[in-house]
């Protein structure tokens, strides 16, 4: 055990993080500093380089750039309005129908595009102004849009679960996807419940308005893009293809759909989408490679076992241990992006939850759910700030309307944390 190495690791990391250094560099530099203490410089450098490459040399990891590319293509392909119209078919007569449409739109678009920000911008960008025209209060519509935006990061396909599967050393991606589907839908339904109550008390009602297009047209417009989710989940669950193959198929499918069927993507937008996907890939891969160096550095310091003995020393009651971990993850999520948080904290927390007998699939879903909440809370929730920007509202004005959503989401979190059967029944049913 090397305590000084641990202190150097944490101090360097936090110091660099606070002054705004890119997180990948924070991870890499603090890990290097730690490894230098334990090993001779030549070997330390060589080992770091080797760890970085071997973390990238993984077949499972291929799913990340592929799902990103198909998401970006769908995003560029103008499916937002099609999904909005489709969602209206279901929510047309419920009180607060426009808020429900927004929430359902976010769930579908978020799943397909794999980006909460893209969902709240595209769907909310249409729905929030429309709701205001129909007499909804703008802070309320904006809150509904923001609160439901992260659902797409839980509903498959999502890169968050692939990163967790890698960081946890081979948890089944298919099982995570199936459980994430349940968790994401619960989150969405929770938001719809809040929207329903608010709308009912304020008397928001809207008639179906399909903007002069027939029901049939709306369905045929939207179904092909939603079919992507069916192909991926169905294909993986039935064992037709692996998660990696599914990601390649989804790229081919979205290319066919947006280029040939919708005809919304041409050569130059295709190029732009490729570059965008490339940039996102570069960001994630840097974090991944750097955190491989970090987990090596961690093993030198013995920090994970120290932390686990602290947490397990607090109580031997699994309920309390789980609560401590949940509070920790919520705090981490408030300051950190989902990707780096998963890569850094999975190797630390997983041994603890294993020890109290938690299923790794269950913990993965709880962890991503937890971190998702951080994306819509102050101080650095990107979803919150982007959503406020879309609605042209100040963040301060949105916190009160967001409060009931936060409460329901937190309640859902506790529910899926303490009742593993809720998220695990679907993967178990499918024999994953």
């Amino acid at each position: 055990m090397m305590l000084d190495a641990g202190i150097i690791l944490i101090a360097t990391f936090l110091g660099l993080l606070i002054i705004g250094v890119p997180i990948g560099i924070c991870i890499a530099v603090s890990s290097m500093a730690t490894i230098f203490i334990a090993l001779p410089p030549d070997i330390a450098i060589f080992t770091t380089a080797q760890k970085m490459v071997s973390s990238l040399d993984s077949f499972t990891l291929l799913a990340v750039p592929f799902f990103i590319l198909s998401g970006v293509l769908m995003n560029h392909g103008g499916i937002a309005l099609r999904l909005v119209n489709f969602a209206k078919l279901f929510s047309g007569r419920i009180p607060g129908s426009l808020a429900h449409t927004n929430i359902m739109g976010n769930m579908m678009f978020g799943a397909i595009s794999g980006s909460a920000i893209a969902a709240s911008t595209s769907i909310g960008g249409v729905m929030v102004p429309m709701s205001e025209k129909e007499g909804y209060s703008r802070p309320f519509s904006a809150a509904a849009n923001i609160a439901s935006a992260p659902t797409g990061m839980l509903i498959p396909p999502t890169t968050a679960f692939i990163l967790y599967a890698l960081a946890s050393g081979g948890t089944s991606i298919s099982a995570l996807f199936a459980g994430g589907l349940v968790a994401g839908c619960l989150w969405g339904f929770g938001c719809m419940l809040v929207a329903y109550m608010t709308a009912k008390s304020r008397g928001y009602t809207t008639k179906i308005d399909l903007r002069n297009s027939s029901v049939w047209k709306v369905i045929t417009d939207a179904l092909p893009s939603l079919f992507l989710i069916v192909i991926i989940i169905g294909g993986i669950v039935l064992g037709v293809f692996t998660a990696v193959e599914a990601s390649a198929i989804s790229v081919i499918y979205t290319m066919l759909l947006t280029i040939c069927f919708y005809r919304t993507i041409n050569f130059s937008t295709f190029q732009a989408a490729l570059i965008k996907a490339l940039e996102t890939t570069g960001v994630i891969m840097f974090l991944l490679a750097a955190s491989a160096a970090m987990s090596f550095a961690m093993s030198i310091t013995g920090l994970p076992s120290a932390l686990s003995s602290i947490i397990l020393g607090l109580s031997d009651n699994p309920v309390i241990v789980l609560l401590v971990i949940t509070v920790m993850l919520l705090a981490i999520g408030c300051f950190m992006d989902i990707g780096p948080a998963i890569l850094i904290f999975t190797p630390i927390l997983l041994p603890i939850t294993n020890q109290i007998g938690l299923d790794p699939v269950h913990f993965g879903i709880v962890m991503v759910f937890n971190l998702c909440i951080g994306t819509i809370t102050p101080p650095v929730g990107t979803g919150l700030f982007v959503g406020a920007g879309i609605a042209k509202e100040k963040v301060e004005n949105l916190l009160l309307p967001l409060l009931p959503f936060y409460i329901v989401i937190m309640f859902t979190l506790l529910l899926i944390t303490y009742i593993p059967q809720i998220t695990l029944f679907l993967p178990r049913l499918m024999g994953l």
Partner: protein
Amino acid sequence: MLTIHAAMDKILKLSCCLLFISMVGVASWQVIARYVLNTPSTISEALLRFSLVWLSMLAIAYVTGQREHVSLTLLTDKLTGKWRIGCDFLMEFLFIAFSAVVLIYGGIQATSNSMSQIYPMLNIPKGLLYLSLPVSGVLIIVYCLNNCLIIYKNAFLTRSHAL
């Protein structure tokens, strides 16, 4: 310097896009080969992994050039003047130091050490995999020097405006 930046952008974009698209093609081929032709392709998996390492390392360099790596900007957004410039320079310096030490120095060591090993299935030296590190390192350093120049120029320009 700016023309070098633009040229590097163009070359990197082109090569990465081509690599990316071919990877999609190879991966789809693997599914087709397994199902339709009933002959599982063994080379494609190794080829894809090899390409992924190269694609990742090149993409990392490209993103560094665009200064798009994620960071916590809660505090730095409020910085102005000298402090802001200092922080910006520090970041570029850290990137340069990291590239020089780990990517280039460590990468060359890893490459030369593993030239005699064979990458499974593809029958090429494993060193070619590690070669992506120094290549990416050199690209990052050129990008960072260029970014430094831009930061310096901007700082100089804003100061003369203030006067």
